[in-house]
């Protein structure tokens, strides 16, 4: 028995010595972490982030690596699944920072994961850019955390102004998920902005439901009865088709307006013609895009077979921001702590970055100043640019 054991060990040791990976020197690799919801409630968001990141990596590999201070470095992506859960996002960030030695992290996308994950990134002094999180607390008092999109307090008034200017309505209804922080926050901001414009009581119905509800008929009946002219519902793409169809069945005639969480490639597939002609505010419009934005959309479409949603575009921008920040930092020392701080400093200094979702300059909090776009779902089911609104 001992002989067998010895033989196995010796054979194993020899096998190791001649395998290709043994004794390979450790080279300095630039690692970028992607913290995305690959499974859970919103897998399409995770998929979009992953695909955008893979396209970016393809570009870098084509160029033979990322050139920093005259030297080319190999780049690797570390893609972690946060299961759309807060504690998993924290675990994923901790793993990427302490185990994989990532230089910067892109993600998580939703605020409920980005807030706790941002705490971790800031604690370990690692740059984190959340492309899609619109909650102010994600970046608040955290010098190492940035974001790639506008905030809720900006988006609410944009939508309120758009409805007023476009339709001239004075009575609005709101339907939102009370259990999810993003819809709830945006609903509050919208209500405030609307009432400021049209006086108290101009929100004639303020109805809520809970995550994973699928029957909205009682809330929608109230809304239809209230005499509202427009319905604002800042929900995620998986709930919109249900809301829109049920509203139409109950006799709702007015427009339904939404926010950036509508902007997923899946929305029109799920909703069909019921959603044609509706408006929502978002980060970019795919149909009728020009220049670099169009180039990105076409590439993504040929590679993966559908038009990228705003998450993919924002992730792309976030990755380019990281790339620019690394290049601006001037050199990679190989000491990960020093490099992370250098990247953070150069990221904060970036001015007028020309992204595919608009130009960006970071404020001191790490929030970009950028424009919002109002998109119309046209008769072909495409997201068409309608109007843009800048701060």
């Amino acid at each position: 028995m001992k002989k067998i054991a010895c033989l196995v060990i010796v054979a194993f040791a020899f096998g190791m010595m001649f395998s290709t990976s043994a004794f390979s020197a450790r080279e300095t690799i630039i690692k970028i972490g992607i913290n995305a919801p690959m499974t859970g409630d919103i897998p399409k968001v995770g998929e979009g982030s992953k695909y955008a990141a893979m396209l970016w990596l393809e570009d870098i590999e084509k160029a033979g690596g990322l050139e920093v201070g005259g030297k080319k470095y190999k780049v690797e992506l570390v893609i972690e699944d946060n299961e759309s859960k807060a504690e998993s996002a924290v675990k994923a960030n901790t793993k990427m920072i302490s185990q994989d030695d990532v230089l910067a992290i892109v993600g998580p996308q939703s605020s409920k994961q980005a807030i706790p994950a941002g705490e971790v990134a800031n604690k370990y002094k690692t740059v984190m850019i959340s492309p899609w999180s619109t909650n102010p607390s994600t970046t608040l008092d955290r010098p190492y955390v940035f974001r790639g999109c506008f905030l809720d307090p900006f988006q609410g008034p944009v939508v309120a102004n758009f409805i007023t200017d476009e339709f001239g309505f004075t009575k609005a209804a709101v339907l939102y998920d009370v259990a999810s922080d993003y819809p709830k926050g945006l609903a509050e901001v919208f209500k405030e902005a609307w009432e400021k414009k049209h006086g108290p009581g101009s929100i004639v119905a303020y109805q809520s439901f809970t995550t994973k509800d699928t029957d909205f008929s009682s809330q929608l009946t109230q809304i239809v009865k209230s005499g509202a002219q427009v319905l604002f519902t800042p929900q995620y793409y998986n709930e919109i088709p249900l809301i829109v169809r049920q509203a139409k069945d109950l006799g709702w005639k007015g427009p339904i307006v939404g926010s950036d969480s509508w902007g997923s490639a899946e929305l029109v597939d799920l909703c069909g013609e019921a959603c044609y002609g509706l408006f929502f505010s978002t980060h970019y419009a795919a149909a009728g895009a020009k220049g670099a934005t169009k180039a990105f959309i076409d590439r993504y479409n040929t590679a993966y077979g559908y038009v990228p949603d705003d998450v993919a575009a924002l992730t792309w921008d976030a990755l380019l921001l990281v790339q620019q920040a690394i290049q601006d930092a001037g050199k990679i020392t190989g000491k990960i702590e020093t490099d992370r701080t250098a990247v953070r400093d150069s990221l904060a200094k970036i001015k007028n970055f020309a992204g595919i979702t608009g130009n960006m300059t970071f404020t001191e909090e790490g929030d970009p100043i950028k424009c919002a776009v109002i998109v119309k779902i046209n008769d072909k089911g495409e997201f068409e640019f309608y109007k843009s609104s800048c701060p």
Partner: protein
Amino acid sequence: MEIARKFINMFSNVPILGWLLGIFTAVLIEYYWGYDYISYYLGLPKIPVLFGALIMLKEPIMIPGAIGYDLIVYVIPILLVAKASNFLTNPVAAILEKTPLWMSSIIHLVCFYGVLHLWAGINDYRVLIVKLTLISIILTISINVINGYQGEFSCSHPGFMAIGAYISSIITLYFFVNDKTFGAAVLSPALGPWLFPFALIAGGIAASLGSLLVAIPSFRTRGDYLAIISLAFMFIVKSAVENLNVIGGARGMGGQPDYAPLPVIFIWTMLCIWIIHNFVTSIMGKALNAVRDDEAASESMTVKTRKTKMTAFTFGAFWAGIAGGLFAHVLAYINPGMFSINRLAEILAMVYFGGLNSIIGSIVGAVSINVLGEALRPLELFKWIIIPLILIFVMIFRPYGLISFKEINAKRLLRSKHKREQGV
């Protein structure tokens, strides 16, 4: 099988202390040579964090390297040292055997903690996993009191956890932190870590008061009905917190101070194991089992069934509250969505996987579900196929869980293992 039996027999005279010494050596090897030499020569980018599970699943080319690392760092040193140090560890264990059991247990636990701390300290990711696993152990044992020992099917554990998490967070944020919602710190922040246990206990007490809300109207019901009532309670807590904007509502509550480092959580977990073990082996614990097996019969045998059930319920809820408080301070952020049906499924999976009516089973369940969940992370979607499959197989082949109806026998576990004493 003959060889395997012989192999196991070879180590039958190694006491727990010997194993601890072996693990200690392995950790020392990893600590000093793991990164610079061993993982370097094996072509690994870094010390594999969970015995190489993550790297093996991500890059299959690393499998031989990771296995080699495990062999060189863990398996061989542990076996060698454990066996070779017999002459030393057995007499020491014999000496400890003569001391009172509590002293011997504490000495063992301190040694165990030292090894765990060193092992986890190599990487912060390990620390986080160990912390969350220890918290899961508290949760699992506490629900085992209700679902295992008492034989009910309670679904309100996430609710109790939420109450504990919120109450203890409110206390620490109000007293020790300059917070936006609660204003400036009332007491000096330096006192925080020392008074943190009181915040946790307050959270636990609040959770057990909450459990009375379930227990009082439902003590006549059993089985499905209690499951429905307790499930409703969980949703009530969640909805209540969502609609309380003072404590953040659905946006959650963040900024809890870092009062829960590894030693604190370890001490609480050990306290929990000890207290619950004493509880379930006491007369009350036997009464619980009697109520579970036949309520009418136990009533006629002078067991106060109502009091027994209420006590078990509030007691389990108390520990769930403690676990919630620790959880909140580890993540430094909580929102009501965390304490929902997903969490319930996780807790129930841990307790039914590990084994009903058994503390050691709960520990096994909590550790294995946590470690599996983390180790299979690179598989993304397939992880959610593999873990449920394992659960289904456990339910088919061992309907009461892996290790059910077994108690820890600390004296037997810790005793010295001289051949002479074994009668060889």
